[in-house]
């Protein structure tokens, strides 16, 4: 086949994806940029107002609260669950796999993976029951057993609730990555450590952890970005409340646009808010590109025939 015809075939194969991507990324991307300079509302009229949305962001007292909420939520979830808890489960299940075979280990890993594949609203239902403020819920049911008064978990500890609920899902990402990193460490390292006199804990401290520091770093970096742009479970469980206590940046933007309670259809302001997130995510992508040597993933094809 000639080169020209070959390139045409490549184009044909790529065309559907290109078309879809253009329609759903490029066009909305440009629209978002434009909308952030308007005061567009539910009537969808283009009324340009210059930088006033951006100026408003700096005057928005709620936004500064939202900013700190976001920091707390992202790093709290990340450090407690996505990294630490994910690592603990990976270590524990790899220990179980080593001594007692793959089956019990897989059971625990599958159990922790399940929330990630549960429809968000069903996952929400489960937590709404666990945290129910009346005696019908799990926690208050148990408290009642011991003769204690029920607690309104969601309204009294809203931040803890959203960190916990997102963390239980987030832990599985680290778990899977760490588990495969741990189990792909050459058996000879573990044997050498055993002969050198290391028990399991010493082995983890001196051999396992140093050898999986790249996956550790990757999960930390990658999940920071994921958490920054996730708001679905918060929307379901607290809706951002009570009174903005659990409103993170992306949820604030969503509520400004679509939230029925606090404001609605302030599209101009909401798009301006989201552009802040875009800048952060682009910077992060570039850093990943550099740090994690994504270039290596795009090694040149070894066949030049088309």
């Amino acid at each position, binding site marked *: 086949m000639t080169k020209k015809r070959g390139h045409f075939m490549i184009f044909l194969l790529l065309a559907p994806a290109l078309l879809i991507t253009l329609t759903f990324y490029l066009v909305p991307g440009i629209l978002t940029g434009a909308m952030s300079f308007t005061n567009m509302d539910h009537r969808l009229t283009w009324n340009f107002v210059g930088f006033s949305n951006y100026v408003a962001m700096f005057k928005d007292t709620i936004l500064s609260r939202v900013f700190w909420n976001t920091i707390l939520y992202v790093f709290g979830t990340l450090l407690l669950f996505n990294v630490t808890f994910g690592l603990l489960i990976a270590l524990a299940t790899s220990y179980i796999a080593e001594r007692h075979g793959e089956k019990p280990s897989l059971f625990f890993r599958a159990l922790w993976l399940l929330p990630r594949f549960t429809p968000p609203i069903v996952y929400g239902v489960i937590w709404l029951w666990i945290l129910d403020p009346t005696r019908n819920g799990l926690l208050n049911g148990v408290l009642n057993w011991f003769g204690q008064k029920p607690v309104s978990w969601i309204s009294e500890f809203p931040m803890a609730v959203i960190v916990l609920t997102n963390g239980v899902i987030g832990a599985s990402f680290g778990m899977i990555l760490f588990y495969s990193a741990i189990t792909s460490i*050459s058996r*000879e*390292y573990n*044997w*050498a450590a*055993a*002969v*050198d*006199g*290391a*028990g399991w804990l*010493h082995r983890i401290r*001196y*051999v396992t952890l*140093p*050898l999986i*520091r790249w996956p550790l770093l990757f999960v930390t970096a990658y999940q920071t970005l994921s958490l920054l742009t996730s708001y679905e479970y918060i929307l379901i469980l607290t809706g951002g409340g009570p009174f903005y206590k659990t409103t993170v940046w992306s949820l604030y933007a969503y509520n400004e646009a679509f939230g029925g309670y606090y404001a609605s259809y302030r599209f101009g302001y909401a798009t301006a808010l989201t552009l802040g997130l875009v800048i952060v995510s682009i910077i992060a992508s570039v850093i990943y590109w550099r740090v994690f040597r994504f270039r290596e993933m795009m090694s040149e094809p070894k066949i030049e025939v088309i």
Partner: protein
Amino acid sequence: MANVRLKNLTKTFGSVVAVDNVSLDIPDGKVTVLLGPSGCGKTTLLLMLAGIYQPTHGEVYFDDVMVNGIPPKLRNVGLVFQSYALYPHMTVFDNIAFPLRLQKVPKDEIRDRVHAITKVVQISDLLKRKPGQMSGGQQQRVALARALVKNPDLLLLDEPLSNLDARLRIETRVEIKRIQQEFGITTVLVTHDQVEAVTMADNVAVLKKGVLQQYSPPEELLLKPDNIFVASFMGDPPMNLLDTELVVRDDRAFFKCGSELEIPVPPEAREAVLSRTGKGLVIGIRPENMSLKEEEGDYAIRGKVFMVELLGRDKLVDFRFGEVALRVLVPADLPVNTGEELWIHPHQSRIHLFDKENSETIPIAV
């Protein structure tokens, strides 16, 4: 230091028998080599000595102490892996100090001992490097130092030379032997390379499919192989092994191989052999245990040169007798041409005979 005794040792993985009923006495202060093709169970055996695998049946004794169930850290063994398994994130010093740190040896003593051992293996100037910045030979020395630094009672080496190039291999072979003798440490070495085994071992245990074939000093493996497997596995180029049967004609006895080759039975073997008339036998002669001459001799065979193959200092002369081939090793400077007819003189005392049925040696010489 310790002597090690294996008693009826068996290890199975699922339905696969990796080590099958092996009994061995590994003497104190000597080098014992476990030799065999890949998959013969030699590494499994080594890992059972280290305590990483637990035997399915049988016992392991260090001196008189039964060590089944004793974890590796209590066995005081040093182990050098084929891949060296140096911790990539630690410097050479930290790698070697690691076992001492885990034993909570005081810092000063750790430093002294690491320096002492690195002097012995000659890597004193590499202490700050990481494994990734060193050559295979250097990594090998570090691994050896890490194994030796805790004064082990038993040193275990798993294919220690296989990742080195040919030249370094010879150097390291000598080096390991020197260090071993300096410390007088009981050593078990696993290898698939017979040259390595013969040069380094005081005793060699040959294994095949988990079963012990022969356990003897290396020279005996070559001179007195216990069975066909050992005879064929040892020696390079390999021994000529020919199916044969005994024929007696005009009061002279021959080993008849195929339709055209007849090897005269040496007089000292006659007694032992005659009772085997009519039974399946295998005759074995090493290529280097024959010479080529123009003149006839008492027990010589006349043959026509089929092919000559130059092997450095020697040449291998290939004779064909119908479907049977016989290869003779001669010095490279001996003029031999294809098609030439010569007399092959087997060294009478070096003829081996095996029972075809159970492949064991039939003792012939006195």
